[in-house]
């Protein structure tokens, strides 16, 4: 399996046929039926049985939505038990046997990718895993979605190759594309890149500008790394205050006489 696998999607080439969705379902053995959307949810095309989808935008623009496999994924960082793992090769995968179902990953993801099996009694978090198991065992050479794309709108390779290919296309036809590779720098970089002739900020809860280029896990780590100092600091502070006040009381007590001090001690 190649290092840093990456998917490049060229929005200008997509015809919206959804062969990638079918390919994904086949490669991962997912139920072909889509689960009905929950009451009140924002319709986003994805569901627990649909790990990638095509968003249809004005003027025949089709944008494939899937997990970005961030270089520093927020979902992996927030999972309290490490059920979501960034594999050494790159894809972000999920281990149900470890998960406890807190759904923090679903909130942590800036793109709203993980979906939940709400109707199950033992629900799992579901999202694209870049066909990691199949790629690793060699059953597949590339993920089910890219191999089934009839127009090569979504292609698979190492991240460096894909980035170079994206830039090559942007340079070759500068008038056709928006001069931006989505996923190159957003939230520290992702392993799913997009080039397009329309802005793609609708893919996240907020625009890429709002998300920034800093990896999201850094935001919590700046608070979490202070934890040991806070812990010890508070302990020292409390013990110190106790000691000072106790000492002052003792001195006041001995000045007032033995009698009173004994009286205070019985008082808790």
């Amino acid at each position, binding site marked *: 399996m190649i290092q840093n696998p990456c998917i490049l999607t060229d929005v200008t080439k997509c*015809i*919206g*046929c*959804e062969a990638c*969705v*079918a390919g994904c379902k086949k490669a991962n053995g997912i139920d072909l039926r*889509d689960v*009905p*959307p*929950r*009451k*009140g*949810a924002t319709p*986003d095309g994805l569901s627990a049985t649909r790990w990638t989808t095509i968003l*249809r935008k*004005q003027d*025949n623009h089709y944008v494939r939505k899937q997990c970005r496999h961030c270089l520093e994924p927020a979902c992996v*960082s*927030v999972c*309290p*038990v*490490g*059920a979501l793992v960034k594999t050494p090769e790159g894809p972000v995968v999920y281990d149900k046997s*470890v998960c*406890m*179902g*807190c*759904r923090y990953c*679903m*909130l942590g993801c*800036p793109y*709203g990718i993980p*979906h*939940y099996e*709400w*109707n*199950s*009694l033992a*629900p*799992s978090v579901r999202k694209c895993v870049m066909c990691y198991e199949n790629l690793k065992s060699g059953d597949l050479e590339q993920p089910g979605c890219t191999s089934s794309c009839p127009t090569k709108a979504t292609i698979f390779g190492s991240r460096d190759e894909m980035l170079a290919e994206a830039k090559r296309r942007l340079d070759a036809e500068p008038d056709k594309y928006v001069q931006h590779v989505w996923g190159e720098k957003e939230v520290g970089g992702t392993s799913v890149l997009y080039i397009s002739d329309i802005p793609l900020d609708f893919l996240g809860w*907020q625009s890429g500008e*709002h*998300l920034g280029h800093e990896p*999201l*896990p850094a*935001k*919590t*780590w700046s*608070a*979490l790394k202070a*934890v040991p100092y806070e*812990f010890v600091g508070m*302990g020292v502070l*409390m013990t110190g205050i*106790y000691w000072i*006040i*106790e000492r002052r*009381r003792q001195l006041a007590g001995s000045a007032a006489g033995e009698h009173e001090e004994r009286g205070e001690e019985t*008082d*808790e």
Partner: protein
Amino acid sequence: MNKRLVIFKSILWSLAGLAAAVAVMRFAFGLGAATNLSDSTPWGLWIGFDVMGGVALAAGGFVMAALVHIFHRDKYHPAARPAILTAFLGYGAVAVGLLFDLGLPWNIWHPMIFWNIHSPLFEVAWCVMLYLTVLALEVAPFILERTPFQKLYRFFRKLALPVMILGIMLSTLHQSSLGSLLLIMPFRVHPLWYTHFLPEFFFASAICLGLCMVMFESCITSWLYRRKPEMEMLSGLAKIAAWALGFCLLFRVGDLAVQGKLSMAFEGSWVSNLFLFEVMITGLLPVVLFSLSAVRRSFGALWFAASLPVLGFVLHRINASGLSQVWATDAFYFPAWTEFSISLGIVSGCALVFFFIQEHFPVDPHELDAMEEERRRADRRTPEFSPFSQIWLGEGWRKDAKVYSMLFILALAVGLSLAPRESAVASMPAEEGRGRDVLRLGVAEPFVYFDHTRHQKLNVGRESCGVCHHLNRVGDLGTPCAECHRSMYEPSPLFDHDHHVEKLGGNDSCDRCHEPGSRAHLAATKTCSSCHEKDMMADNPVVRKFDSLEAGPYKEALHKMCIPCHVKMDELKGEGENLQLCGTCHDRGTKSEAAFFEWLERRKRNEQ
């Protein structure tokens, strides 16, 4: 007997009964049936109130422990034990609440062995586990005080100080880490709530909430048990709370001002109004009230003033962890009644355990003496016959137990009959088809347009109706799909048993469908097609038999009907339009879409 207390406890027992019923439903039918959560709002009331709010409500434990045992403010001693007991029960409630909210609750212990130190939730999990243990050690002395286990009691007494300091250390960590939980979602949490100082603010607000909760609780117990309120202690706490709340308010407003977001609060949107309301009841109002000496001298006013920040800060937790995120996700979420029921039931359970411990263990030694004296007197009293109920229920606790258990069971029964058994999916009836030339299918953009006229032409005349219309109603030539496949995503029932019994001639007609002598199970029943053969269209390529009691979901039915035909047509045509692609139907700007709007125009003209 104290009527106030009996009524209050009756309400609590009823709520607990209702929650018990919902609990059964939650575990029998899953999160989907019991909540209104969705993929856009994965956290709801149970996290916002039970966990985030519960931990903060229980903050009184560490605040009072610090005030009394570290700072030696002996004036507040009477409030220390109730506060620590509340904290213990509160954290217990958090754990129970989590069992409901977690998708896989049997894995709740996983943070003990599977570590991820980068997750603030991991830290919270560990702190809560450890702090619950610490609180148990803090509660142990007053449970043991009047038992024969005096050696153990003295051992726990000696342990008290280091345990309290450890408790304060742990509380500092996880109260602030609840704020760190939200740091990673600047894209979800509304800017008015999001700040880099979320952990610090959560810690500061926990102290405020802890103080106010102690006052609120002290008020409510003295009201319920008709005790003289400890006004001196309460007004002292009010003074401290005024300072703490004032600090929190300045912190919050100042932080927003520095970030330049203050103007957002006056936008007038409902989120900004929510924010203003929150600031009003967590800051401005209580600070003013607590600093008035008239308020500090009045029991009722003090009670009211203390309840404001309690509500306000719990609201803050709910807003930050969920409600304010609607801004980003554009999704609607309001908790289902079942969610409220579980949250209220857990609080009720805690309150009942609190009352029990208070009435039987020396949480307040003087009051316990008084209560035991009262109980002894009640035992000596002659039985009274209630002329109203005409039933003698016994005296003292026996009578109460009967009343409470009856209420619990009644509420349980009501809950079991009302609780939803199915997941709350968006209800989506299929498109009504009768009298339309072009159908618009689907529930939202992008729609699929189905040009019925064009399909009719392609299939050569009336004889071909059966290619799609596989089953018709009596007297119909082509019954629209939606009249049997009524729901977009759910199967709809086809078979009306009562109708058949009536039409076939009442009870005597059972044999006509069910095999004589057999029980009316499906296996021994004739299939629908054995009588309705003639209603089926013979030349339908997909559905040839009528033997199902349900019509499948509309979406599935159409896919099954359209795809095989399109694949076949594609093979016959050889070249040209590729009819097998999903985009043939699922696309914008198709011929059928244009035909739909044309037809719409035509219909409008005709109506005029």
